[in-house]
């Protein structure tokens, strides 16, 4: 039985879960057909599809798949509303906003920093240390990345400097939360303040009111020779930044590391039950130190992407809460690299939309910025499946 084949009617061979997933797909199609390139100008087919999605939801609900059932009902409603909205708006507007290739490209741009930081967060939390300080670690990478690229004249060295700076700040978090057994949430909050202070201070002291110089070595884009000029793909991924590709490559790498290698097994054991890991001779504290430092380096690379690859300059507090979105992606992605990628893409997409929606309404677009947080709230409330963090997360380990 494959989840890919969508069964129209539920039978005994099809589980309630599959019906629920089919509902999600129906709702998506219902809205999608009213957008470019299909541009169905009447909401009728969408209403039918939307109702079908809601029917699937009701069936799923009846079969005990409550969460997906409710998701279907909500999505079905939203799809019908969306279809009405888009059939009422001008084709020109729709064509300006929903340029899918450009949206995908923008989504990847916005998702990249989140992805790096979220992967870092996963490593850290999988080892049993909560990392509220992702924001601060990103900010460190953000400033010291561009500082390194400027002073040393090369973006490669800039990224190295960023990673070292992020790792150092993470080391502070590690010392406090592992060795001094600080409250990890408090320590993370302190880290964020500290990073804001350090980066702002050194930026002001070093660059002053003029800011970073304009000609700084930045991370290049990768022009894919074969598909660069091939319509949709060319525009969507033909000219993406090197770091985007790096981030995407890190997802399977980290998944492999966590779930298929001995070190991944040990890392997870330390995060789930450190005493058990200790009694089989694993160095719990050392593993946690390494994990926290690695997370700082990842987060800093995410931050460095913002300054060294995306914008090419630095402004104080440049991350503006991206570290918290990354934290949300960690939770939304249930501490798994693959799902976290999905989460960061979703969040990246909502930022991309926020960029483009002003065509319709300059103000409403702002609310899209809040979408990642709302979605995460919905997710942790258990509406999209139960989340389960590493059991020892947040609890300092005391060796006897």
């Amino acid at each position, binding site marked *: 039985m494959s989840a890919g084949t969508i069964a129209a009617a539920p039978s005994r061979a099809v589980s309630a879960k599959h019906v629920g997933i089919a509902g999600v797909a129906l709702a998506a199609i219902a809205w999608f057909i009213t957008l470019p390139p299909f541009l169905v100008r009447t909401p009728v087919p969408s209403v039918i599809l939307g109702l079908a999605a809601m029917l699937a939801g009701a069936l799923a609900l009846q079969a005990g798949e409550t969460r997906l059932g409710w998701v279907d009902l909500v999505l079905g409603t939203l799809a019908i509303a969306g279809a009405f909205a888009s059939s009422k708006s001008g084709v020109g507007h729709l064509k300006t906003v929903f340029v899918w290739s450009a949206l995908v490209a923008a989504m990847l741009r916005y998702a990249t920093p989140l992805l790096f930081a979220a992967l870092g967060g996963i490593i850290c939390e999988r080892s049993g240390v909560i990392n509220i300080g992702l924001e601060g670690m990103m900010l460190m990478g953000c400033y010291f990345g561009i500082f390194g690229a400027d002073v040393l004249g090369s973006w490669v060295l800039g990224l190295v400097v960023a990673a070292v700076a992020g790792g150092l700040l993470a080391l502070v978090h590690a010392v406090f939360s592992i060795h001094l057994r600080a409250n990890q949430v408090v320590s993370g909050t302190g880290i964020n*303040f500290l990073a804001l202070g350090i980066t702002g201070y050194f930026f002001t002291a070093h660059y002053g009111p003029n800011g970073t110089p304009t000609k700084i070595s930045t991370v290049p884009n990768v022009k894919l020779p074969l598909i660069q000029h091939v319509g949709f793909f060319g525009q969507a991924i033909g000219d993406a930044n090197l770091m985007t590709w790096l981030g995407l490559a890190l997802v399977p790498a980290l998944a492999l590391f966590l779930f298929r290698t001995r070190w991944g097994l040990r890392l997870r054991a330390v995060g789930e039950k450190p005493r058990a890991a200790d009694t089989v001779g694993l160095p719990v504290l050392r593993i946690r130190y390494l994990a926290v430092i690695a997370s700082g380096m990842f987060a800093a690379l995410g931050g460095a992407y913002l300054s060294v690859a995306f914008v090419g300059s630095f402004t104080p507090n440049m991350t503006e809460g991206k570290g918290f979105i990354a934290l949300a992606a960690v939770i939304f992605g249930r501490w798994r690299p693959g799902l976290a990628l999905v989460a960061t893409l979703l969040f990246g997409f909502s930022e991309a939309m926020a960029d483009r929606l002003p065509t319709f309404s300059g103000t409403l677009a702002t609310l899209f910025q809040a979408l990642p947080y709302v979605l995460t709230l919905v997710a942790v409330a258990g509406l999209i499946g139960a989340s389960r963090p590493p059991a020892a997360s947040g609890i300092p380990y005391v060796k006897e």
Partner: protein
Amino acid sequence: MSSGIPDRDIIEEGGAEPGEEEALEASLTSPARLTAYLRRGGVTVPILTTLIAFLVAGIVVLLTGHDPLSTYSAIFKGTGLNWLFPWVSGAERTTAALELQQTLIQTTALILVGLAVAFAFRAGLFNIGGQGQYTMGAIVAVWVGSSLSGLPAFIHIVLAIALAALAGAAWAGIAGILKAVAGVHEVISTIMLNWVAIWLGVYLFQLGGPLQDPSQSSVPVSKTVAASAKLPVFWGPAALQGLDIGIFIALACVVVFAIIINRTRLGYEIRAVGFNPDAASYAGMNVRRNYVRVMLICGAFAGVAAAMDILGWKFSLFTNDIQLSQIGFLGIAVALLGRNTAGGVVAAALLFGALLTGTSQRNLDPTVFDPNLAQYLTFMIQGLVVLLVSTDVIALRVLRGGRGIAVGLRRPRGPKPTSTEESAT
């Protein structure tokens, strides 16, 4: 046959097993033991913490080619605290008074956000959402304060404060309900709610936003609070932003906080739930409802904090302000440095209020130290203070029997093992 020899291991008198406290100390690392000892010393730790933070920041100042002593003395002068010295007189005294008023204005809101965090701590909750609750309070305060301009002053002020408190409470209440109903950890929910509130505020007051001031169409700012909703200034000239009565409202809230915690059934329940939810439900308390009640009260404190700022001296709300404000997070620093006690919160709020004022563009002498730099120096000191007090929270954890503040979205299934394994016992 079972022998009836006990399963667990506490011997009454002269036993060979270490007492709980001694076993604890034996298991602590030496720096943590130092902290544990210091906590018994009461105010010693906070003072030491602060000194270390200033020392480290001073080293940074020194390394970047400035003189830390003259920098700190300029900052101190900027706080206006020298007004308290009887030998300061004349023009210097007048300036000092003005500056002290600014310090106390900052202190007002900090006390209240500190209470918002401290109250949650006493109930075993981690309110990291002071920022969002403050923002919601500010939105409502500025909205009520700038509309309804026909009202008599007293009623207008009370209404604006009450509705701001309500807004903060409602926002915090979401986190409380999510925890009570779905077991969502409040650290996660309040962080998310912070950003939702911030973007909501930006949406409302941005250019073309529904509540943006139509008379300044190119500035993303709210309408200005009407005269009838402004808090009366009782010390210093109102035109130069003298001290308003907000400080008294904040101090009254401190008294309310202390009375609730120590003298009332509600406070007793809150503390019991905070220390041990299982024992609280054994005592017939409704633990889940308590989470909601506590968050409501916390949010109300934060909402009042915002009302004091808006009605006291800001009078309008810029989107920039909403995005850059760190006051909710400062509340965490205030609460922790003040050990979640009423008096401690006041003292810590005064410290941070003074620091903010002393390093501000308005008050710091730019010939001694660049205020732009000083602003970040403040963040650094705040970060160091929070980091240093974070280790000290260990004492709290030990008292709670080893329950860490774990970000757990799932409540543990089944009974816990009798010995708390990752605890310090």
